[in-house]
């Protein structure tokens, strides 16, 4: 397969400086667009390519951009482009890779996107913990400013763009685009009511586009090589390639650029090398902590937005978190809900109160204090705070996705916790004894655990 996003990454990453990037056809798309294409033609190309947002929602990028007022329809003032580099979805580690090893690819994508929507100011909103990526991006931006690729009159085209890096103060909700905008304005990152949408009224009340890092990294290639080429890269209905990955107790956890529509089985069994010795795959989250579990029955599905959607989950960020048969599904969901409860911004009551309540119920079940009526409470939470419209944003509905699917696929585990009055996997301590922290490697499964299978 042709490598697109990771052509400068891989076994032997090339240096991250401007010279190395340009030597491998870097800034070719930008030169082409600024000399031969109007913003409208760029937008047409992105729309035709079928590119969908790689941050998790999968919204068509060209359509998102098309809502930005252009020319006379836009009141005078700034327009903003923001790269969402606040990669905090549990189990996701693709954008860090793209930024650390190829910062200029993101910058070229941002310049092209800003040109298309007519933005003159751009930000990379990046996790504060991503120190290496922050330093490399700042170095790369300085190189661009010194070489006419950023700043006034880029490459003599008359187009001007300022690009800044904003390291986040740290909060999962900043990944939600309107919360991110509030954070960039120096406020608490509570999501905003929509409408108005950011395309019309975003940062400082001005038209703003927020795109995921991986989405933006695709732009230079689409502009350079065309929509038809991009569409031909996908194996199924979706276009292009995607950063896929698998973590958990697989033999070779990692992140790989693969065609859209790659079967899940290829990711788990070929790229990730299958399960560690003695373990069976029990289920997996297809794309981060806020996606529904799927099971071994779904391994032959293609990693396409609509295929995964029809199976009852979401492709999300495309990085699988694999659940093995020696790890307690109830405890795993407890870990996820604990994360979401901690990261709730606290603005709306169902999320602020409902997630800690759900966490407490799950902890009671996991620790053997569960009652049968607790299962009704969990089902109620799923139906109430899991329903879009009952909460201010998508955080709580996202949090309910792994819970609702765990109740569907791993119901017998919940039941056994309650009927036995203890975790059949022996709780977290026994679970952790299997990890590679112990020099003896994997221990044999406990009798209790076998009883569940």
């Amino acid at each position, binding site marked *: 397969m042709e490598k697109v996003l990771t052509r400068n990454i891989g076994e032997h990453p090339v240096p991250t400086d401007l010279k190395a990037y340009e030597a491998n056809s870097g800034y070719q798309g930008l030169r082409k667009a600024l000399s031969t294409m109007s913003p409208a033609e760029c937008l047409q190309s992105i729309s035709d390519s079928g590119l969908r947002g790689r941050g998790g929602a999968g919204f068509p990028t060209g359509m998102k951009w098309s809502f930005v007022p252009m020319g006379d329809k836009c009141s005078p003032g700034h327009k903003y482009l923001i790269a969402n580099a606040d990669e*905090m979805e*549990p189990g996701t580690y693709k954008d860090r890779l793209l930024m650390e090893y190829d910062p200029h690819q993101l910058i070229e994508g941002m310049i092209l996107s800003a040109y298309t929507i007519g933005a003159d100011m751009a930000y990379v909103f990046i996790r504060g*913990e991503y120190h290496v990526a922050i330093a490399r991006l700042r170095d790369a931006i300085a190189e661009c400013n010194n070489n006419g690729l950023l700043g006034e009159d880029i490459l003599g085209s008359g187009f001007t763009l300022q690009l800044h890096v904003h390291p986040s103060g*740290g909060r999962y909700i900043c990944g939600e685009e309107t919360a991110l905008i509030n954070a960039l304005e*120096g406020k608490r990152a509570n999501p905003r009511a929509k409408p108005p949408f950011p395309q019309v009224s975003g940062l400082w009340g001005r038209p703003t586009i927020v795109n995921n890092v991986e989405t933006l990294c695709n732009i230079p290639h689409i502009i350079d090589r065309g929509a038809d080429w991009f569409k031909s890269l996908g194996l199924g209905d979706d276009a292009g390639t995607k950063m896929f990955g698998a973590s958990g107790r697989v033999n070779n956890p990692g992140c790989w650029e693969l065609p859209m529509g790659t079967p899940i089985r290829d990711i788990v069994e070929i790229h990730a090398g299958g399960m560690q010795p003695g373990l069976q795959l029990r289920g997996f989250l297809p794309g981060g902590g806020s996606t529904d579990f799927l099971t071994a029955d779904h391994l032959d599905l293609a990693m396409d937005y609509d295929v995964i959607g029809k199976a009852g989950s979401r492709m999300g960020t495309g990085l699988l978190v694999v659940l093995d048969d020696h790890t307690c599904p109830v405890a795993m969901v407890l870990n996820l809900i604990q994360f979401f409860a901690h990261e709730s911004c606290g603005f709306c009551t169902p999320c602020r109160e409902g997630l800690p309540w759900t966490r407490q119920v799950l902890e009671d079940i996991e620790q053997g204090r569960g009652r049968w009526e607790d299962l009704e409470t969990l089902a109620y939470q799923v139906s109430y705070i899991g329903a879009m419209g009952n909460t201010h944003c998508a955080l709580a509905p996202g949090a309910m996705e792994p819970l609702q699917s765990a109740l569907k696929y791993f119901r017998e585990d919940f039941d056994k916790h309650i009927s036995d009055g203890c975790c059949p996997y022996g709780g977290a301590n026994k679970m952790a004894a299997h*990890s*590679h922290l112990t020099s003896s490697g994997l221990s044999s499964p406990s009798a209790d655990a076998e009883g569940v299978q």
Partner: protein
Amino acid sequence: MNETMLIQTDLDSVLSPQEKAEIDAELLHIPYKSGAAIDALKIVQAKRRWVSDECLQAIARYLEMSAEDLEGVATFYNLIYRRPVGENVILLCDSVSCWICGCEQLKAKLSSRLGIDYGETTADDLYTLLPVPCLGACDRAPVMMVGEELVTGVDDNKLDQLFGQRGQG
């Protein structure tokens, strides 16, 4: 908030000229001063490890916003510290992939080695231990960040390398 401190200190002299210069540089691309709130908190914290009441009030004054508003911002974000921390903050990932790969056992080992629980600082002021959501290195779990260094695949050997015989004797 310590009211007497507010009266006794000349708030304009709390921030160093360098801190003010760094904040001014951010303000060049931000249309309202309060928009630099998070940048300013991080600039001040970078030199002083944490944001004291006095610093918080000085920043608020510098950015022409109320200290109460700024406190609401400061306490919202995980990486702004409103209590003293040690020389190195250890951010231990407790999210799902690291959990599957044994972060709870790692936490227990780290706590016993350093003699501190989450939110605590070692007596010699070298380390503060905090949990952090997913650090984006799940393929090399369990992971943690010590200061600005990402440490992946943390095992007993790595703990020995990082902390020597600390807490072993």
